[in-house]
Structure formats: structure tokens, C-alpha cells
């Protein structure tokens, strides 16, 4: 879809003619999208429209699903991530992901954040600094600095989600994918996460799937609207919300369906 191609001078993520099937069922149809560096791109659309499936193509999480077949091209920093010599483990180091349900490991707060760097061979004496910095960036340091050794599962839902963001940041990715990160949280925690993502965009490229249209309008620079596996419209958030080109985009945004 040409609508997906933006006039972005140096897109960091380039998706071209992406098709995806779960067995016989086609979940993504010919999706093309250019996502610029250091921006927030929101993906909206009704349940089952393919937005989560799409975001999981960007760090190849769909590889984990049996009989999932992908065609097309996804380029990140001019590397085809579906190329034959790509190491998926390395890809996921540079493309982090935060999930819908806060899912810290059953370990201490410290160990959760240190988990990634530790396995990737961080120096033991650097670890404290990495953990502290990640917790600072995820805006949760002040709440947990005095109890880093207590279990992560003792935190509230919103805190757990920010801890998961810190865990992702500690691996030092370039891109962070958010898959409906606030749908399990209360409004105040949601706002904190939104503020956080807006702060993070100066260092990271952010792609966020959301059910919440106000959220997309509040935080994103670009918005893509998915329907039945197709990217119906993609553009600057202002334009999508104030002056959508497609009738179905307008219908969805104004709440006529979805």
C-alpha cells in the first residue's frame, strides 16, 4: 500500500510488501510502512486487525509460532532482518519488546533488570550502574531504590510494567516495541507510561500498538490504521486524526465501529 510509504528521509525501519499467514489464514496483506528514527509510531485498529502480528514481525517473535509463514521484506538499519545470515538473538537485542501484561520474572527487582546484561556478558562491576541507569530511564528508580532485592512480583501492576521497560532498556536496544503496554493498567499508571514513552523517544525509536485512540493521539508522531490485515492508512498523527483520507479510518476514529 503506497499510503504506508512516508516521505521520511532516512527511515530506520522499512517494511515492504509484508504478507503473513497463520496456516491458511492470511493475517497481514501486503503491508508497507516506513518508520522514522526517534519517533513514536502508533498502530491502531480493531481486535484481530493484525497490528500485534505486525509489530511481532519487527523482532521476529512470530518465529515462535508454528506454521506461520512470512513473505516480504523488513529492513532495519539497512539490514534485511529476514535474511539468511541474520542472528535472531542479535536482532532482538537491538529491537526490544514490552508486552501487554506486565511479566517480570519471579526474581528480585535487581535481577530482573540485570538478567539481560548478565547473560550478554556484562562486567560484574558495571552491572550496578547499568541497573541503576535503566531504572532511572524507566522512571521507577525512586520507588524501588531502597528495595532492589525484594521480589519483582511484590510491585504494583504499573510498577511492574515500568520494571519490564527498565529490563528492556538495560539491554540497550535501538528500537522498542510496545504491544498494548497499558491495557492492563489503571489510568494513572497509564499516564506515567505515556510520559515515559515520550521521554524515551529522544534515545529510541518507538512503535506502540494500542487499543486506546486517545493514547495514540496523545503520544504518537505517526499513526497507522489497520483493518482486516491491511494497513489502511499511515501518516502523521495529526493528519490521521484530523483529516483522515480513508472513510474507514474516520469511521474507526470517530467510534462508529471497533
Amino acid at each position, binding site marked *: 500500500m503506497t499510503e504506508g510509504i512516508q516521505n521520511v528521509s532516512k527511515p530506520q525501519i522499512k517494511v515492504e510488501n509484508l504478507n503473513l499467514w497463520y496456516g491458511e489464514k492470511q493475517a497481514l496483506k501486503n503491508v508497507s510502512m516506513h518508520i522514522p528514527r526517534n519517533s513514536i509510531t502508533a498502530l491502531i485498529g480493531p481486535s484481530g486487525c493484525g497490528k500485534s502480528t505486525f509489530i511481532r514481525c519487527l523482532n521476529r517473535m512470530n518465529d515462535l509460532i508454528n506454521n506461520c509463514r512470512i513473505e516480504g521484506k523488513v529492513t532495519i538499519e539497512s539490514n534485511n532482518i529476514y535474511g539468511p545470515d541474520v542472528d535472531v*538473538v542479535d536482532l532482538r537485542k537491538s529491537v526490544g519488546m514490552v*508486552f501487554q501484561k506486565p511479566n517480570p*520474572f519471579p526474581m528480585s527487582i535487581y535481577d530482573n533488570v540485570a538478567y539481560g546484561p548478565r*547473560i550478554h556478558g556484562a562486567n560484574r562491576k558495571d552491572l550496578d550502574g547499568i541497573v541503576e541507569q535503566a531504572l532511572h530511564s524507566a522512571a521507577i528508580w525512586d520507588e524501588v531504590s531502597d528495595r532492589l532485592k525484594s521480589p519483582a*512480583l511484590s510491585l504494583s501492576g504499573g510498577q511492574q510494567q515500568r520494571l519490564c521497560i527498565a529490563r528492556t532498556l538495560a539491554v540497550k536496544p535501538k528500537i522498542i516495541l510496545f504491544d498494548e503496554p497499558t491495557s492492563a493498567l489503571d489510568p494513572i499508571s497509564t499516564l506515567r507510561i505515556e510520559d515515559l514513552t515520550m521521554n524515551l523517544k529522544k534515545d529510541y525509536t518507538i512503535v506502540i500498538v494500542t487499543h486506546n485512540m486517545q493514547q495514540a493521539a496523545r503520544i504518537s508522531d505517526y499513526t497507522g490504521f489497520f483493518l482486516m490485515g491491511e494497513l489502511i492508512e499511515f501518516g502523521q498523527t495529526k493528519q490521521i486524526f484530523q483529516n483522515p483520507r480513508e472513510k474507514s479510518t474516520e469511521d474507526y476514529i470517530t467510534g462508529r465501529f471497533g
Partner: protein
Amino acid sequence: MELNADVKESDHKATRVQGGLNFRLNAKTSEKIAFAFLGLSVLIVVGFVLVILAYIVYNGYNAINIGFLTEMPRLMMTQGGIYPAIVGTLYLIIGSMTVALPVGVMVAIYLNEYAGETRTTWLIEMAINNLAGTPSVVFGLFGLALFVKYFGFGPSLLSSSLTLSLLILPVIIRATEEALLTVPKEYRESSLALGVSKWQTIRHVVLPAAIPGIVTGSVLSIGRVAGETAPILFTGVAYFLPRLPDSVYSQFMALPYHLFVLATAGTNIAKTRSIQYGTALVLLIIVLGLNLVAVLIRRHYRKKLKV
């Protein structure tokens, strides 16, 4: 019209019959009856366990003293202790667990985490299920043919331990698979999304979360190793051997077989009655003790995992 009326009448009859039987219980009554049956079942089970335990303790506790636990059998096993049988059973537990636990856990990890849902996997699962249902005497014969004869280990601790490890392998595999299944998919996903490889994810996140379940399964199999007679009968247990095994190629005594010998083939069955019950009691205590250890291990890991 006539037909219609007929239908109506039969309908009416049906309701009347139902009403006549009046067999529909109200919720409260059915709740009470169900509760009574369920509670009764529990009482029967607990009752039998307690009776068996009490019977063995009552008849056996007189036999137990330091000498009984630390001395060799004397005078055709009518006097003295059961020390070699205790040691033999402990060796069997250690030997078979050393083999079966790592292999079983690795098989379960492979089947659950790596193998896809293919026909081959299905066949392997079927084979494991069948292995679990095979009578233990068949394992004994198999152990005799393979370990004792073909590999030439002779009737020995080694042959018996290997035979027993085959017997408990399916139990450990099943338990580990169940435990792995209870580890939330989210743990795996979020670890992989951090650029952590599959094996590292299994080692650092999945296995620690599965340990309580694995321990439970292992304990069940320890109980079997301690109690089985048929598999060791063919592969190495001795009728009477007043010394400890000095290598893995030695024969050995074991508690369940010693009990069997005393009770059925001893030189003076009536005279050894209290030794028999004492032996049973020791066997029970060993199994219960190991159960307790496992519960403690499980609780330790649960505490570490949960809040």
C-alpha cells in the same frame, strides 16, 4: 387438529410422569449427598493408610534399635540387624536417580521445548506412556537380558540401578513435562525478546520455575525405587549377603526383597515376625523421610520464586 391434540396429550403425560417420579433433588439436598460421598471416600482412604501404618508400627517398633539398624543379619537371618539391606536400598536410590534424573529432565526439555508437534514426537510420547504402564517384572527380565548378560555387568548394583532407572524414567519425564507446561509462556517470550537464546532462557528462567514440580516427580520415583522387588530380583539382589557391596559390580541386599525373603522363604518364618515388621517400618521411614526432604526443597524453591 386431531393430531395436534394427540401431541398435546402425550406432552402432558410426559410431564405427569416426570412429576410423578418426583426425583429431582433440590440443590441443597444434592450438595449434601455429594459432600457425604466425597467425604466418605476421603475417610476410607485416610483410614486404610492409618490402619496400615499403625499395624506396621505396632508390630515393628519393638524390633528397632541401634543394633537392628547397624548390624549384619545373624543365625540364618533370624537374629541381628538389617544394615546391609538399608545400605543396599540407599545405594539403589542414589544409583538409579543419578542416571534417571538428568536423562529424564533432558528428555522432557527436548520434548516440551524443542520438538514440534510431529508424528515422531507423538510416537515418542506414546512410547513413554507405554513404558510407564509396563509391569515391573518385565523391566526385570529386560535388565537381566541387557545389563546382566549382554553388557556383562553380571548380577550387580549397577545392573539393578540401571534397570530401576528405566522403570522410573517415564515418571520423571512426565513430571518434568507437566512442570515445564506450568511455566507461563510470558516468561519465555519476554526472555527471548531480550535477545536471550532459547537454551539460556530454559536454563535461567524456565528450569528454575519448574524445579518444584520436577522435585515432586522425582520423589514419587524414589518411592518406587525403594519399594520395587521384581526388577532387582533378576538383576542383582542377594538372598543373604552379610557384607556391604564394595563396588558397583557387587551384589547387594535390599529392604523389600529382604522382607519378602523373611516372610516367605526364611528358615524360620514365625520367629522372624518382628524383624519382618521392623524391616517394613524402616522402609517406610526411609521413603517418608525422603518425601519430607523433597517437600522442604520444594518449599524452599517456591519461596524463592513467589513473593
